[in-house]
């Protein structure tokens, strides 16, 4: 077997193919011939059988018929013709069954096929014998003998033909195979050689593609493979170099990463760290590579345990990556706060190879965070304050606009000629009230700005406590009465007669607390309780009301600036939300505080405590002084007398000019006007004035510079500054430049009058005793009789007025005054008409205290008119 294999192995493809193909062809031919011969033999046999059967079938009927006739000659003829016609029939014999026999034999045929072939075919020599019957009557039997010689000869010819075809095919196949394979074998040999050369390193070898498609394809494939392999090898060499460069780069990059980076294997052994890591931990790479966590952290340290457990989680696939912050106390430079970011890295097959980590030093970040957090808080506070300011501004806008609306609206309404005196009085009172409200708002805002600028200052001066309380009571009572509420002051004696502090601010606080109580009380009343704690030197004021009260939540934000109890309070009751805040700030400035107790729908109690400085030998009162009792009756009425003198008014604003001129005219002063500081300086230097009222904000030359120039020029007259700036520094500036006093805008009339009376002498009555003539007489004497008739009626009119006053018949008095106004104006006595109008205004305001004074003035005026009769009588003119 082995020898056979060896033998076969030495055979080339061509020989193998030829042998195989030849054998296959032979085998195929043999099988085909065998099957063909078998088939042909069988076919022959069947054909012969069939032919004989057919013959017998044909002959049977014929023979039977002829047998019936007895024509044996015809029968023989039939048989002979059939034998001649059918080569395979060797003999036909008919036996009539009665001894008669007709037999015919065919011609012997030449046997061409060799005996072996005939024996191989095994063609049967057979005969067929059949009984002849016709309609059940036998007519002997017929026997047909078949010869196989023709079949054998035919099959032999077929065999020879097949053999010839076989040889022809084999020859053709062999030649074709040889021709085809020759070229292809050459290509295969070339492929073999080329592969061998390529394997030995000759990467440039290529095969010429020739031969069959498959070999062509194989050669091309080899060439492509060689090309790609050569390319790949080239790329591989390049890649190897690139990898080396990349590795080097990676290591340098690793070292260049500014944050500590490390990697270790699954046993926790450090495989590599970068420069930043070395610096961070103060350990060199050589010291840590090959070591574990225990080499870096102290044994049993929290950091060691933390890191170890974290590593285990990663390695056990409980996590894919980690981030955790940890405090590292034992590092160069002290405690550090770090963020560890770790993850596993893998082999290409997915197995965990180790852990890689980066450390972010959060120490500075944490510090920055804290700073940022503080800044954020500040920002939030600022935003909150800004928001509150925005809300405040919005609210202020409303608060400011609201009274302004009333002021503007009612001012305009006063121009309406159809208004009644009552309506005019109402409009004027509304304007006054709204103006005071607006002034309060502005004062609150100014106080707030002082607080925010840390310029809130309080005075420490001695003042009479009772007088201050009387002023408060007077003001608050009026407001309470207006709302139908009661207001009373409870004095818990003993109380110091004088205290040292800021009376103005204290009064402001108390007025604010009381007005708030009145504002939030609908029925009942407000009480102010005053007490003094000698042990602590604290003055205590409790303002209690029976109002709407507040909830704890409202109480918590009550003293916040710009915040009222809640938004609904603002909407319903108005207000800026600054009063309590400012009041508390003032209280704090006065070493005190304001606290509050309140129950919703029950009422509130605001408690003010301030520290008063000690006053030597201060008197403690045990009861209310009598003076204060009387002073409660009247606060607003002006009881000041007229003055005489010249005043220079330096004011550029027309409205303020009109207002101040009005005030001064009522006082009786003579006024010269300067519209800017330069004019004011000129007039002051050229004319004599008892007083200069200097507005500080003027064009061309402001009040400050004008005052300085006057003082530098040697002017010594009184200069009172008119300023809208309420800041102390502005006031100080005014005084330092030479002003004797300042008057704050908006001008409060009583204060204004008081200041004017300080610098101008009271007016004498004589100045007012000259006869007063009618303006009608200016146009001619035709109205003389009318004027004289008025003069004659005037005493009676005056008596009627006094009579009405004595009977307190204010309605009659109003009617009489109204008539006097109209009549006196009609008769040309405009001064009397104007005075009557003022009296009518006073009566409309129910200011009956001022009626006496006005009547006195009206009566004086009437005397002057009556005195003029002497001048008007004709006798007087002669």
């Amino acid at each position: 077997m082995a020898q056979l294999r060896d033998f076969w192995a030495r055979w080339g493809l061509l020989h193998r193919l030829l042998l195989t193909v030849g054998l296959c062809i032979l085998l195929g031919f043999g099988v085909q011939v065998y099957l063909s011969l078998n088939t042909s033999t069988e076919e022959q046999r069947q054909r012969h059988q069939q032919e004989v059967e057919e013959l017998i079938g044909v002959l049977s009927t014929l023979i039977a018929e002829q047998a019936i006739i007895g024509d044996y000659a015809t029968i023989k003829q039939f048989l002979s013709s059939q034998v001649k016609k059918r080569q395979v029939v060797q003999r036909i014999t008919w036996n009539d069954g009665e001894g008669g026999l007709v037999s015919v034999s065919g011609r012997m045929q030449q046997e061409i096929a060799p005996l072996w072939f005939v024996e191989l075919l095994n063609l049967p020599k057979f005969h067929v014998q059949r009984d002849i019957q016709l309609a059940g009557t036998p007519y002997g039997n017929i026997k047909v003998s078949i010869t196989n010689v023709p079949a054998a000869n035919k099959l032999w010819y077929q065999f020879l033909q097949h053999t010839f075809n076989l040889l022809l095919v084999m020859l053709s196949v062999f030649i074709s195979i040889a021709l085809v394979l020759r070229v292809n074998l050459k290509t295969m040999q070339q492929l073999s050689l080329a592969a061998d050369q390529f394997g030995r390193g000759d990467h440039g070898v290529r095969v010429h593609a020739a031969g069959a498609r498959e070999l062509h394809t194989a050669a091309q494939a080899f060439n492509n493979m060689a090309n790609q392999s050569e390319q790949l090898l080239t790329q591989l060499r390049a890649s190897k170099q690139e990898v080396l460069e990349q590795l080097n780069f990676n290591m340098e990059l690793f070292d260049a990463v500014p944050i500590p980076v490390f990697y270790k294997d699954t046993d926790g052994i450090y495989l590599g760290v970068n420069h930043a890591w070395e610096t961070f931990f103060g350990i060199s790479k050589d010291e840590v590579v090959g070591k574990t966590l225990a080499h870096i952290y102290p044994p049993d340290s929290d950091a060691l345990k933390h890191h170890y457990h974290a590593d285990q989680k990663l390695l056990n696939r409980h996590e894919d990556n980690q981030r955790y912050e940890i405090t590292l106390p034992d590092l160069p430079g002290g405690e550090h706060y770090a963020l560890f970011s770790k993850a596993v890295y893998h082999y290409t097959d997915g197995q965990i190879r180790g852990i890689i980590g980066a450390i972010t030093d959060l120490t500075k970040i944490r510090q920055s965070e804290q700073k940022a957090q503080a800044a954020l808080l500040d920002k939030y506070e600022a935003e909150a304050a800004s928001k509150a300011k925005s809300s405040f501004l919005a609210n202020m806008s409303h608060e400011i606009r609201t009274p302004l609306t009333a002021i503007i609206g009612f001012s305009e309404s006063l121009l309406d000629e159809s208004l009644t005196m009552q309506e005019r009085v109402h409009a004027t009172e509304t304007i006054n009230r709204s103006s005071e409200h607006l002034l309060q708002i502005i004062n609150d805002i100014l106080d707030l700005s002082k607080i925010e600028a840390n310029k809130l200052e309080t005075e420490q001066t001695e003042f009479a406590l009772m007088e201050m309380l009387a002023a408060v009571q007077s003001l608050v009572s009026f407001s309470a009465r207006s709302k139908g509420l009661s207001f009373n002051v409870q004095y818990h004696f003993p109380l110091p007669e004088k205290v040292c502090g800021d009376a103005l601010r204290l009064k402001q606080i108390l007025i604010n607390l009381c007005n708030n109580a009145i504002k939030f009380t609908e029925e009942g009343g407000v009480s102010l309780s005053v007490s003094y704690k000698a042990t602590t030197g604290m003055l205590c004021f409790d303002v209690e009301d029976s109002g709407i009260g507040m909830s704890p939540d409202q109480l918590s934000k009550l003293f916040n600036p710009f915040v009222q109890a809640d938004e609904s309070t603002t909407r319903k009751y108005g207000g800026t939300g600054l009063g309590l805040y400012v009041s508390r700030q003032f209280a704090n400035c006065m070493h005190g505080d304001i606290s509050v107790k309140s129950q919703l729908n029950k009422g509130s109690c605001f408690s003010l405590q301030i520290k008063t400085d000690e006053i030597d030998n201060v008197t403690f009162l045990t009861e209310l002084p009598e003076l204060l009792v009387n002073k409660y009756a009247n606060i607003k009425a002006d009881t000041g007398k007229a003055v005489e003198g010249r005043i220079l008014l330096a004011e550029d604003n027309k409205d303020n000019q009109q207002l101040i001129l009005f005030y001064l005219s009522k006082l009786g002063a003579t006024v010269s006007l300067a519209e800017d500081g330069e004019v004011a300086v000129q007039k002051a230097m050229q004319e004599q004035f008892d007083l200069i009222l200097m507005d500080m904000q003027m064009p061309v030359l402001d009040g400050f510079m004008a005052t300085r120039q006057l003082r530098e020029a040697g002017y010594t007259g009184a200069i009172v500054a008119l300023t809208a700036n309420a800041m102390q520094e502005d006031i100080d500036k005014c005084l330092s430049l030479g002003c004797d006093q300042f008057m704050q805008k908006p001008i409060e009339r009583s204060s204004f009058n008081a200041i004017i009376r300080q610098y101008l002498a009271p007016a004498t009555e004589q100045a007012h005793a000259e006869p007063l003539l009618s303006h009608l007489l200016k146009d001619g004497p035709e109205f003389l009789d009318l004027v004289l008739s008025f003069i004659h009626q005037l005493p009676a009119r005056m008596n009627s007025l006094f009579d009405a006053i004595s009977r307190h018949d204010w309605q009659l008095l109003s009617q009489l005054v109204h008539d006097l106004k109209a009549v006196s104006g009609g008769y040309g006595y405009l001064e009397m008409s104007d005075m009557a109008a003022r009296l009518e205004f006073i009566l409309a305001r129910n200011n009956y205290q001022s009626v006496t004074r006005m009547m006195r003035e009206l009566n004086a005026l009437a005397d002057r008119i009556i005195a003029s009769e002497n001048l008007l009588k004709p006798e007087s003119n002669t």
Partner: protein
Amino acid sequence: MYFMRTCLLFLFTTLTSVVNAAEQSNYFGVINQRSIALTAKYWNPILNYVSQKSGVPLKLRMGKTAPKTTAMTVRGEHAFVYTNHMFTEERDKLGYRVILRMQTPSINAIIIVRDDSAIKSLAELNQQQVAFPHSNAFVGYWVPMDHLMRSGITVQPSYAGNQEGAMAQVHHGKAVAAAVNKQVLERYASRENFSYRGLWTSEPYLSIPIMAHPALQQDKVEAVRKAFIDMKNDVLGQKILKASAAVIKSRKPLEFIYADDKDYSNYRNFYRNTIVNK
């Protein structure tokens, strides 16, 4: 005398040889009315049955044509024969005697033309070709020719060889007319869907009898007669008769009944008086 002795000797020898021949082969002759194969299919089953029943082996033997069959009968080769050709004066003298006949209606001679023929009468057949089975046929030649001749009609006879052959000639237009056995014609026409018109029909003659050779032993003759007659009473015999009737497309089985020479005296009389061949 010498002549008479010679004739008698000849006759004796012939008859003896015939008898011997007849006895040895018991040939049963059938006058040619159809093809030999059809005749064999019809008669062989009957003959086999009769052979078995009578114990007298019968074998169909006939000539290619009716004349040849008649010649065989005349030579005494037939022990029994189904023919009506033996009633001529000369053949009557041979001594064949009637023993049976088929229980069939009498046979008639009929001269026919195709149904679509233009010939409407016998007279129009004058000088026309008329097909006859053969010159020995009784109703197929002698009777119709006698009538034609007695009618003064001269025709040109053509011999088809057998009854159906003559019918076929008219059927297929080879002859304008034919003179055939009417009963045979009817069976042929039914089988072959042949439409014809009869120009003349003869008086009825009994159907063709079965005659026995005068030299046969009477017991044998009787046995054969009895077997033929008893066929209709035997289940097998009925079956064979029915099958044979089907061969020739006859609706009824052709039973055999007793007959003798007296029944066929009119044949003899015809042959004595006919003007055919005279």
